């Protein structure tokens, strides 16, 4: 679950206007905590050789053609974002996020996490499903986040607080 902070978005906006340098520094610092998780998650994406041949983009037909697997695309789809997102339906704006954007990557991430490893597909995907709750379980980004043990999350929060204290000290000087 994300850490809830109030005023962080306003701070980031204020930093972008008043102290662009500090804003960039903050973004960089947040990114530095997200990058290792992304790198680790990308490492859990199997190569084309390791995946079921019928799912490969080159072999996939019919419905599967749209979501055919390509390891490069799947790896590229795992990204991070260190700027505030749009407000979602629940009214929250994410300050830092890690994504698994590609369709094939998402299938690899989540296949079998709800119904279990049954049938002909999910048991043959390999990897390991890890995570706290069902919605936070997966083979790539969720596994990497779980294995990170909250270091990235702490780092992001600390970076925001650090930016805030710096901004406050600058404000006092002015």
């Amino acid at each position, binding site marked *: 679950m*994300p*850490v*809830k*902070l*109030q*005023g*962080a*978005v306003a701070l980031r906006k204020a930093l972008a206007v008043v102290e662009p340098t500090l804003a960039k520094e903050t973004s960089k610092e947040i990114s530095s905590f*997200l990058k290792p998780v992304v790198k680790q998650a990308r490492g859990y994406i199997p190569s084309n050789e390791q995946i079921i041949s019928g799912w490969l983009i080159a072999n996939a037909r019919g419905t599967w053609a749209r979501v055919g697997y390509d390891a490069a695309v799947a790896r590229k789809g795992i990204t991070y974002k260190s700027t*505030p*997102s749009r*407000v979602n*339906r*629940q*009214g*929250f*704006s*994410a*300050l*830092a*996020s*890690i*994504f*698994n*954007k590609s*369709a094939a*990557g*998402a299938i690899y*991430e*989540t296949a079998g996490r709800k119904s279990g490893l049954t049938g002909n597909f999910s048991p043959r995907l390999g990897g390991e499903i890890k995570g706290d709750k069902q919605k*936070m379980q*997966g083979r790539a*980004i*969720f596994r990497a*986040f779980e294995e990170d043990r909250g270091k*990235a*999350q702490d780092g*992001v*929060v600390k970076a*925001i607080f650090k930016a805030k204290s710096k901004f406050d000290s600058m404000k006092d000087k002015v």
Partner: protein
Amino acid sequence: MADLRIDLAAEFRGKKAFKEADQAVSGLDRAVGKLGKQIAGVFAAQKLYAFGKASVKAFAQDEAAAARLATAVDNLGLSFSQTRVTDFIQNLEKTSGIVDDVLRPAMQALLTTTGSLTKSQELLNNAIQISRASGIDLATVSQDLANGYVGITRGLKKYNTGLTQAELKSKSFNEVLGIMLAKSAGAADAYLTTTSYKMDVLNVAADNAKETIGKGLVDAFAKMSNGTTASDAAKTIDNIAKAINGITSAVGGAIGALTRLYQKIDSTTKKIHDNYPDPFGLRDNANKMPAGRSSSPAGTYARIKQQKEAEAAAAKRAKELAALQAKQVKASKALTAEQKKQAALKKAGTVFDLEQIQLVAALKGKLSEDEKLRVEAQLALLNGNVELAKKLTDQILAAQDSSGNLAKFLAALPDARNPFQYLDAYLSYLAGKAASIATGTPFGQAQPNGNTQVSPTIPDTNVPSYPSDNMITYNPKTGLNYNPNVNNPPPAVINVTVQGSVIKEQELIAQIQNGTQLASLSGSPSQIGRIAGMFG
């Protein structure tokens, strides 16, 4: 497809639904604003109605209070002074900032008590001053002063005059009032500079305005109902209320309708006045207070005459009251003096009391402490000194406890004995017994050596009895009591039933004599051995 993302930190920035709700509320606000403007007209009409009702009520109350005071003034025979009373109340209302609704009952209380207009006016002014100083409401102060005027001074205690209850009773009302006025001097003047006084003045003005408007409305409404009384006015007011309720449905035209309504009232009033002249002047005078002022120039004379008569009566009454009070004080003093005299006589009488003389003489002699206490207690009882008598009696009782029964009890206690005293005798007894066993000679027989052993009696080894708890009792009044016979009840009476007959001693002797004579005659004489002491 599931949105696969991990949010590491987030901020709640409000839901879209909230924005929608905000927009809805602001829309509602606008709608309510419009609605408010629309119904403001209705509210204005209702406020007007409420104010009108309050005004009519205020006028009715004022009118009733004025009527009560007028009746009181009439009953005192001061009917021609009504105008003066009204003027006085009005002026006092303006200067003091106290509404006439409060002044009238206060004036009435004083007027009915004193019977004097000038005295009542003076006392009312005093009451205002005391009320300002003490913070107690004017109605209470004026009632207390009225009571004090007739000698009931109990209520004056709360004004912290510094006088005791006895002083309040013994001092005259004027003296007490003088003290109260001295302590509250300047309070009324000081109050005139306060904001509270200014507020009071505004309050008075508003109240009067309300009464005036109320009077006008009552007149107008009554005339609308083709009547002259307040009940007629009430009917019209009810109709207006119904009309206003009806107007609610037609919100926009409420104010206009009300304006037209009042215009109608005006025109109706004018029509009534124009079409129905009042030959006897009843209509205009219906709600007016009786002026009490004679239309003739002789009215002034009559008023002054009435006033003088009332003042004279009041002065007479005041004199009577003062005389009565003086008489009461005199009677009280006489009673106290008489009591003192009787006490002195009693004291002198004791000089010739023989019993007392004897007791005093006894006290001069040599007496023990106990006797002295008893004599002193007796003397105290004779003199009626209850406290001393009780104290001395208690001392005597205490002494009785310590030297009376307790002493008896102690005297009855046996000597403390040696508990091993019997052992010597007992050991001797045992030695004798052992010797007899050794020699084979029983006790009491001659031994071979010629000695005769005498068996000793077994010594008493019982510890003497001490008084048991039952023998000693304690009574708070008489102290300790000792009764050694409590455990030894009197011997029981035993009745012996003898079979046969019981004869007297003389008859028995006669019978024996007859028997011996018969025995002698039959050859068996009786023998008497005087030396041997035998008879046979």
